[in-house]
C-alpha cells in the first residue's frame, strides 16, 4: 500500500475537522458557564457551523475529489447535502435555545453540543466513499441522537422512546454491518468504486449478493424510518424534546438518504435489477402505511412522525428510478422537506406555553386563526407544503420524484405515489380546518422569541421561493447528482 499524505487531504476534510474541534470547544466552554449563560454554547455552535460552511464553500468544484486515501469524496453531491445539514443544524439550534429554557433543560449545554457532534457524523456519511467511513458516520450521527431523545430524564415516555431507539438502532447497525461484511467477503474491498468494479465483473455469488443487499437495505431503511423498520419512529418522535424531533426528522433522515443513494448508486449499481424491486416495495409500503396511520393520530408530533415515514417513501422512489435525475430529485426533496418540517416544528414550539406542555395535541390548534392570523397563515403554508399542494415547494419536490419515475417507465409507482398524496392531504388539511373553522377553546399564549421568528421566516421564504421558482436550485442539484 503506497500511501501519500498531503495538505490536500487535510483541506478536503476541513469542514469535518472544524465541526469536531468546535464541538470539543463547546464541551469545554459549557463547563465554565453559569446556568443563565448556557445559550452562549449554542451561539458558539452556530458560529462553528458557519465556519464549516465557509470551508465547504471553498471546496465546491474541487479538482481532486478523493481525499484521505479514498476514504472520503468531496464531490458536489456531498456538498449539496452538507449545506442542507448546516442549514438544518443552525435552524434547530435557534429552535433549541428558547425550548431549553421553557423545558427546564437550560442547565445543560450538552443539549447543543451533542447536536454538533451528530452533525459531524452526518458530514462523514455524506462524504464517505468507503463502507467503513459510512458506517462510522452513521454511528457518530446516531449516538448523540440516542442521548438527545432521552434528554427529558424525568419523563418516563422520553426514557422509553430513547430505549426503543437505542435497542432497535443497535439491531439495525448489526444488520447493516452484516450486509457490509458479506459485500466485503464477495468483492474483497470496502471501497465503493472497487465494489462496483468487482460486481461488474460478474463473478460473485447471486444468493449472497441478494442477502447482503437485503441486509443493507434493512439497515439503511431503519435509519430513514421506512415501513417495516419504522417501529421506533413514532415513540421516539413523540417522546423526544421537540427540537430534537425536528432534528431527527430532517437531518438524520437526510443523512441516511445521502448515504443510501451513494452506496446503492455508486457501489451496488451493477446489481440494480436485484435491489430496485426491494426498495420499490419498501417505498410503496412506507407511503401507504405512514399516510394512513397518520390520519388516526391526535398528537401532532406523532402525526408528523407517521407523515415522515410517508415522506421517506416518496424520497426512496427517487432511488428506485436509479438515474441521475432520480438522485437530483432526492436532493431537492430533502432540502424542501428540511425547510417545511423545521418550519412546522417551529410553530409547534411557539404554541408551547411556559410551564405546561401545550401545542402537542392537534385540538390545541382550534381557532388559532382567530387569535393570531400570521402564525396560522405560516402553519397553513407549511402544512400545504407537506401535503404537496401547489404552489408550495413540497409539490415541486414530489413532482420531480414522479417525473424521474415516469421517465424510467415506472408509471404504476408514480400513480401509487400520487394516490397516497391524496390520502395524506386529509390529515394536514384537518389541522388547517381546526385553525380556521373552529372557535378557540382557550387563551393562546404564544412564545415570543426572536430566534423562532428567524427560523419561521427562513422556512417560509424557502418554501415559497422553492415552490415558485425551483428551476435554478434543481439545476444545481442535477449538476451535482450522482450517475450523470
Amino acid at each position, binding site marked *: 500500500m503506497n500511501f501519500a*499524505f498531503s495538505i490536500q487531504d487535510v483541506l478536503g476534510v476541513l469542514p469535518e475537522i472544524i465541526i469536531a474541534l468546535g464541538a470539543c470547544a463547546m464541551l469545554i466552554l459549557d*463547563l465554565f458557564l453559569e446556568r443563565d449563560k448556557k445559550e452562549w454554547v449554542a451561539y458558539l455552535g452556530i458560529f462553528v457551523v458557519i465556519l464549516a460552511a465557509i470551508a465547504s464553500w471553498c471546496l465546491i468544484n474541487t479538482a481532486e475529489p478523493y481525499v484521505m486515501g479514498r476514504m472520503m469524496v468531496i464531490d458536489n453531491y456531498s456538498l449539496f447535502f452538507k449545506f442542507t445539514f448546516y442549514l438544518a443544524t443552525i435552524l434547530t439550534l435557534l429552535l433549541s435555545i428558547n425550548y431549553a429554557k421553557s423545558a427546564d433543560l437550560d442547565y445543560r449545554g450538552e443539549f447543543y453540543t451533542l447536536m454538533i457532534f451528530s452533525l459531524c457524523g452526518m458530514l462523514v456519511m455524506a462524504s464517505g466513499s468507503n463502507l467503513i467511513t459510512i458506517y462510522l458516520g452513521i454511528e457518530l450521527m446516531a449516538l448523540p441522537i440516542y442521548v438527545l431523545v432521552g434528554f427529558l430524564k424525568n419523563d418516563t415516555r422520553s426514557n422509553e422512546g430513547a430505549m426503543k431507539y437505542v435497542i432497535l438502532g443497535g439491531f439495525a447497525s448489526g444488520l447493516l454491518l452484516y450486509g457490509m461484511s458479506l459485500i466485503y467477503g464477495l468483492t474483497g474491498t470496502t471501497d465503493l468504486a472497487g465494489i462496483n468494479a468487482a460486481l461488474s465483473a460478474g463473478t460473485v455469488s447471486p444468493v449472497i449478493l441478494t442477502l447482503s443487499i437485503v441486509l443493507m437495505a434493512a439497515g439503511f431503511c431503519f435509519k430513514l424510518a421506512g415501513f417495516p423498520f419504522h417501529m421506533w419512529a413514532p415513540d421516539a418522535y413523540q417522546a423526544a424534546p421537540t427540537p430534537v424531533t425536528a432534528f431527527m426528522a430532517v437531518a438524520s433522515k437526510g443523512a441516511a438518504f445521502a448515504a443510501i443513494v451513494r452506496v446503492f448508486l455508486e457501489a451496488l449499481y451493477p446489481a440494480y435489477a436485484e435491489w430496485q424491486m426491494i426498495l420499490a416495495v419498501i417505498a410503496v409500503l412506507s407511503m401507504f402505511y405512514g399516510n394512513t396511520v397518520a390520519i388516526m393520530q391526535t398528537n401532532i408530533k406523532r402525526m408528523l412522525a407517521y407523515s415522515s415515514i410517508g415522506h421517506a417513501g416518496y424520497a426512496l422512489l427517487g432511488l428506485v428510478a436509479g438515474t441521475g435525475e432520480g438522485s437530483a430529485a432526492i436532493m431537492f426533496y430533502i432540502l424542501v422537506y428540511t425547510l417545511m418540517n423545521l418550519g412546522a416544528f417551529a410553530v409547534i414550539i411557539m404554541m408551547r406555553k411556559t410551564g405546561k406542555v401545550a401545542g402537542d395535541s392537534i385540538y390545541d390548534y382550534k381557532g388559532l386563526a382567530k387569535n393570531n392570523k400570521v402564525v396560522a397563515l405560516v402553519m397553513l403554508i407549511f402544512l400545504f407544503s407537506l401535503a404537496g399542494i401547489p404552489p408550495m415547494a413540497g409539490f415541486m419536490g414530489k413532482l420531480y420524484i414522479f417525473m424521474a419515475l415516469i421517465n424510467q417507465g415506472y408509471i404504476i409507482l408514480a400513480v401509487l405515489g400520487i394516490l397516497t398524496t391524496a390520502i395524506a392531504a386529509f390529515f394536514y388539511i384537518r389541522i388547517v380546518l381546526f385553525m380556521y373553522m373552529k372557535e378557540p377553546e382557550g387563551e393562546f399564549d404564544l412564545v415570543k422569541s426572536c430566534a423562532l421568528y428567524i427560523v419561521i421566516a427562513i422556512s417560509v421564504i424557502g418554501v415559497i421561493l422553492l415552490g415558485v421558482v425551483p428551476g435554478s436550485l434543481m439545476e444545481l442539484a442535477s449538476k451535482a447528482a450522482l450517475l450523470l
Partner: protein
Amino acid sequence: MVPYFSILIMMGFVGILGTAALVMNKIMGPKNFYKDKLSPWECGMPPVGDADRGHFKVHYFLIAILFIVFDVETLFLFPWAVLLADKTISLFIFFEMIIFLVILAVGLAYAWKKGALDWV
C-alpha cells in the same frame, strides 16, 4: 506453528487448573447445607425483599462505561507501539496517535469537571 502458541498452552493450563480446583472442592469438601445456613442474615429477622442482592450504586455503571471507552483506546495502542519501530512512518503515526489521545483527553477533562470520577 500457530503464533503465540505458548500463551495458548498457558491459558489452557490455567483453565484446567481452575476447573480442577472447583471439581476437587465439589468432590472432597464437606457438605452440610440447611435452610437457615443458606439464608442471608438480616438482624436475626427473616429476610425481606432483596437482602441477598444488596444495594447497587448507579455510579458503578458509569465507571464501567468509562472503562470500556479507555479500554478500546488502549487496544489501539498495541499495533501503534509495534509500528513505532518503523522509522519511515514513526513520526507521522506518533502525531496521529497524539491527536487521537487529545480528543479523548477532552472527554476525560469533561468527566473530571462534571464529577463523574467523584465517588460521593
